[in-house]
C-alpha cells in the first residue's frame, strides 16, 4: 500500500526556486537518509533525465523520478516533494513540474502494490486535485489513506 511507504517523513514542501537537478536531489533526500537508496541511484535518475528522460513527466505538473533497481535501490520506497515554483525538466517550459515523486523498486515484482496505488491516485481527477492542493505532509497522508480505504 502506498500509505505504508509514503509516510510523513518522506514528504517535503519547498518554497525555494529550484532547478530540476536540485528538485530531483531534494525529492530523493529522505530516501537517501533512510538508506532506501544509494547516492548512485540519485546520480542514475539525474543522468537518465539529462539524457532526454522527460518521460518521467506524467502530466498535470507531476513527475515520477526513478531509475532501474540495479542502480542502487536498497528497499522499495517512495518520496514526494511539492514545490511552490515549478522546476521544469531539462528547463523546458512544456515539462513544467511542481510535484516530484521519487520511486525506488528492488525488483519489478516488489513494487506493484504501491505503484498501482499511486497510479490510481494520480489518475483519479478529484484525488489528484486534492493532492496538488495539499499544504502539509499530514494532508497528503490523510488523503492517501482515505483514498485507499474507499477503494
Amino acid at each position, binding site marked *: 500500500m502506498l500509505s505504508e511507504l509514503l509516510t510523513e517523513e518522506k514528504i517535503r514542501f519547498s518554497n525555494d526556486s529550484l532547478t530540476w537537478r536540485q528538485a530531483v536531489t531534494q525529492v530523493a533526500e529522505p530516501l537517501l537518509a533512510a538508506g532506501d537508496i544509494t547516492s548512485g541511484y540519485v546520480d542514475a535518475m539525474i543522468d537518465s533525465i539529462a539524457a*532526454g528522460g*522527460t*518521460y518521467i513527466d*506524467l502530466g498535470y505538473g*507531476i513527475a515520477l523520478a*526513478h531509475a*532501474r533497481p540495479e542502480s542502487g535501490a536498497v528497499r522499495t520506497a517512495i518520496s514526494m516533494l511539492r514545490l511552490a515554483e515549478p522546476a521544469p525538466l531539462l528547463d523546458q517550459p512544456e515539462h513544467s513540474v511542481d510535484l516530484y515523486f521519487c520511486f525506488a523498486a528492488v525488483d519489478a515484482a516488489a*513494487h506493484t502494490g504501491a*505503484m498501482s496505488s499511486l497510479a490510481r491516485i494520480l489518475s483519479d481527477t478529484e484525488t489528484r486535485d486534492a493532492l496538488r492542493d495539499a499544504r502539509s505532509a499530514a494532508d497528503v497522508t490523510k488523503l492517501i489513506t482515505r483514498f485507499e480505504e474507499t477503494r
Partner: protein
Amino acid sequence: MKFLAMCSTGLGSSFMVRMNIEDIVRELQLPDVTVEHSDISSAGPESADVFFVAKDLEDAAAGLGDVVVLNSIIDKDELRDAVKSAAARHGLT
C-alpha cells in the same frame, strides 16, 4: 489481442499506463485483451498488437507497428478514448 505499455525503464510510467489500460479494458468489457508493460528497448514489432507510449518516446517507438502516443499517462479520459479507438481498429467492438 495484446496491448503493451512501454517506457524507458519498464518500471514506472509503463506500469502506471498498464494499470489504467487494465481498468479501462474491464470497464469497456473488451474480450480477449491481455495487457503488459516493458521497457522500450526490449520490445519488437512482434511483442504486441498495440503499443502505448508517452509523447517523449514517440520517435523511439516508430516502426513497432500500431503505436498510440499519449500526451499524459495519467489522463484516464485520453487513455479511454485511445483504448476505444485501438479496440475498434482491431475489430474488438
